[in-house]
């Protein structure tokens, strides 16, 4: 039964990583990346490594997408400084 859990989590990781590569918009990539972080945390837990899962959860599902979003906002705001709201859509 543990093997089934590991296989499903592995498939989720592979699917999420492929989707993150195939998406071109950075904002959408950030959402897929947070899913990838969650899937990796699940996989690490099923592989009996909850300490790695904890750090992966903090880094992968929260910090990395937040940094991407902050960077995207900073980059998009620079060329047209007249628009004070750098809203994506």
């Amino acid at each position, binding site marked *: *039964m*543990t093997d089934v859990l590991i296989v499903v989590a592995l498939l989720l990781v592979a699917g999420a990583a492929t989707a993150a590569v195939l998406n071109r918009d950075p904002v959408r990539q950030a*959402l897929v990346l947070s899913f990838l972080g969650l899937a990796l945390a699940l996989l690490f837990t099923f592989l009996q490594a909850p300490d790695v899962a904890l750090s992966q959860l903090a880094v992968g599902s929260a910090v990395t997408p937040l940094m991407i979003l902050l960077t995207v906002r900073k980059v998009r705001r620079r060329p047209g400084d007249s628009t004070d709201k750098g809203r994506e859509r």
Partner: protein
Amino acid sequence: MRADDGWLAVALVPLLALVPVLWRVSRGAPEDRLIAQNLSSLLGGLALLPAAQGFGRPAYVDVALVLSVLGPTGTLIYARFLGVLPGSRLVRRTALLGVPAIVLPLCVAAGPGRAMAKLLLIGALLIAGSVVTGAGGGRGRKAAADGGRTA
């Protein structure tokens, strides 16, 4: 290590439910992706709780505790950047039906004590986070908190 297959089979259910969520998070409108991200953290927490019981390691519950705090926080951060917090009846229903269905049997299995208090805390955090982030709005924090009781 002795693994309890019944609890692991329970953990497989939310894990398989993550597959269509992955489809929506990779292909969909931005609002759908935000809802899918919200739902994925909820389902992840629901998969981790029975897995901890199935592996016979109650300490694994800590991962679910961290996830129940970080998941809704991440959703609110995305809502802040995208400028929209879509309401989702699916997230609220999954939380209100799925969390008691998984947490209460785990509490019975754990018996009274610190482990049961921790499980109840995680369940309450998962429900509260899903109700707040699934309420929708974006009209301010109070409106989002009040919108939880309206269908």
